[in-house]
């Protein structure tokens, strides 16, 4: 077996000019049919070649072929959806045909004990030097090239809008549920990669590809394990200096109940090692899927803060107090307003408003007060970031307030998040704000945690970028 390159380039998979769907069918129950249909529906503009061993004539209106070897034109990407037993042969043929990238969606490999079949796939990948994603995965979807190999019924999944978050997941199930939730969280997707058993392409290749990908502003990873630890660290070091990487690690319980001979080995289990590596190389860790989404949206839309001094504005005192507590719990602090800010706020706010942080603008605060506070905070060099609490249950808060929050949350050069707990009216306002590009959280705790992650990443980048200069 030839040795694998350090990194496989995923370009032929993410941005193919032509695709072959092996296992394509006119029968809507077949996965090969769904994949073909989804690519047509998603607006993929390149050439499409349906391949089926029993093919004659056309499939879904496209000229069909019995084998990839029968296609005369160059094929960039082959999507393989045939039974596991035949996959090694099909992959080998793809190699001979000069295909530049392969996705094997079929299951039935090492996850069910058929490592022999998977090894054959790996060998073909190495022999022909082709990036192969899978087997046992959903494959990829790409907001730019419009390639979509996910065999999920379009009606059952919310399609994310185009954006800057790229999401890679070992698990197809976690992958598809996150994908479904993205749109509701108000951020956009660049690339999605479900890589399953990682027979050839692994997390190192993906991390490296996404680090250099211009469309990707934030990398989000769901990882269960890493296969090449040292290379992963190298790729991670480089990637984390270029863009934020939010990671959630599955399999927190430790198999490391192994007989340890020292205290150190007993403490430093495999889960702890992962956590240490993530922390050391600037990854942002998420405990669960909701947190993964909470962090993704702030990193996609907000600039990095210069420090940890936070200004809170609110139209409800209690929530302001809770938010202040949450700041300190997550290692942030309440800012101290400059004189200029205090003076300008005194002029605008009614006498009942005590001008100090957290700034409680009272229950009748409407867009004028919100705007005055936001403008003053924006200009104040002693404020690094803003938490705007908008309780839409109050008489003054309405869509005009939401619009102001969007305006400032998108134009300022310091980060802002919104906290808005509430029911159906609030939910509508929340959506307006999020679609406008400002992250909204239901609780002060979530908001503070997200801001703290942003601040930590800013610090990591500052200290490491300076050093490497």
């Amino acid at each position, binding site marked *: 077996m030839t040795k694998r390159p350090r990194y496989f380039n995923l370009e032929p998979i993410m941005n193919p000019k032509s695709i072959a769907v092996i296992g394509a069918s006119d029968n809507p129950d077949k996965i090969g049919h769904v994949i073909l249909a989804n690519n047509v529906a998603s607006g993929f503009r390149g050439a499409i070649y349906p391949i089926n061993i029993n093919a004659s004539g056309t499939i879904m209106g496209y000229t069909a072929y019995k084998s990839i070897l029968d296609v005369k034109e160059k094929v960039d990407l082959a999507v393989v959806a045939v039974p596991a037993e035949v996959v090694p042969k099909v992959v080998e043929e793809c190699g001979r045909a000069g295909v530049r990238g392969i996705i094997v969606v079929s299951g039935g490999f090492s996850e069910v004990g058929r490592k022999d079949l998977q090894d054959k796939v790996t060998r073909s990948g190495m022999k022909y030097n082709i990036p192969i994603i899978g087997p046992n995965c959903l494959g990829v979807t790409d907001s730019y090239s419009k390639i979509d190999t996910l065999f999920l019924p379009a009606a059952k999944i919310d399609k994310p809008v185009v954006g800057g978050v790229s999401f890679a997941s070992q698990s197809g199930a976690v992958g598809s549920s996150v994908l479904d939730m993205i749109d509701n969280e108000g951020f956009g997707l660049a690339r999605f990669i479900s890589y399953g058993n990682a027979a050839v392409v692994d997390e190192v290749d993906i991390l490296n590809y996404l680090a250099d990908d211009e469309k990707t502003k934030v990398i989000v990873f769901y990882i269960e394990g890493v296969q090449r630890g040292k290379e992963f660290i190298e790729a991670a070091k480089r990637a984390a200096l270029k863009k934020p990487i939010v990671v959630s690690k599955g399999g927190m319980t430790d198999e490391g109940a192994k007989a340890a001979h020292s205290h*150190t*080995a007993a*403490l430093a289990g495999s889960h702890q090692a992962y956590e240490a590596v993530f922390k050391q190389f600037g990854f942002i860790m998420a405990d669960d899927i909701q947190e993964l989404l909470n962090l993704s949206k702030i990193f996609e839309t907000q600039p990095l803060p210069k420090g940890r001094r936070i200004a809170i504005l609110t139209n409800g005192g209690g929530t302001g107090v809770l938010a202040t507590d949450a700041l300190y719990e997550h290692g942030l602090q309440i800012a101290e307003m400059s004189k200029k800010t205090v003076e300008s706020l005194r002029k605008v706010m009614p006498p009942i408003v005590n001008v100090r942080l957290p700034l409680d603008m009272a229950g009748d605060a409407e867009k004028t007060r919100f705007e005055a506070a936001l403008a003053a905070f924006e200009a104040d060099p002693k404020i690094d970031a803003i938490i705007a609490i908008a309780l839409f249950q109050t008489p003054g808060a309405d869509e005009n307030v939401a619009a102001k929050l969007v305006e400032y949350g998108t134009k300022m050069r310091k980060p802002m998040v919104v906290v808005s707990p509430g029911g159906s009216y609030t939910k509508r306002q929340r959506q307006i704000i999020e679609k406008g590009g400002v992250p909204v959280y239901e609780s002060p705790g979530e908001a503070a945690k997200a801001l703290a992650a942003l601040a930590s990443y800013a610090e990591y980048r500052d200290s490491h970028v300076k050093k490497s200069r």
Partner: protein
Amino acid sequence: MALVEYFEAERLLKKYKIRSVESRYVKSAEEAEKFSAGGRIVLKAVSGKALHKSKSGLVVAGISGGEIGKAYSALERRAAKYRPYRILAQKMVHGGIEIIIGGSEDVQFGKMILLGLGGIYVEAFKDFALRVCPINMEEALSMIRQLRSRKIIAPDRASEKMVAELILKAARMYQGGRMKELDLNPIIIHDGTYDAVDIRMIK
């Protein structure tokens, strides 16, 4: 899997300029008493068959003068089942904060260095920081600052610097030395300095 002999391990510590408490193997209670020179000492039975000395009852701490004879024979009785063993006498370090610095090898990421609140608190609080080797000064400092017990371990700038430098030396030794696991537990921080009191190196 073999325990590196105490003084071989101590020599390695010296090479990396890591301080350790004054120790000597003793063959009798008299020898131990002579070593104590009137101060308090600790006696430890060292055996490849008992990796956890204190758990196996093989440590007697804080004895001096006339107590040494009795403690010595009691220790010999308890150590009998771990033969062959040797008895190590160490000068007692008074007071101070106990920390652990250790090393262990991860299948994926290789050698890792650990800092934690030490001694009996290691397992109770599990307050520790872990990094992949090699590390630099900044990372050593971040390990201290990550701990809940940071104010206990390093209450001021000077002690923070001392502990960080110690972590760096230990990390270099662990990476450079041919060992699989390392426990310096405890290292006692006292009087503006520190002493490694127990050394466990596993090849």
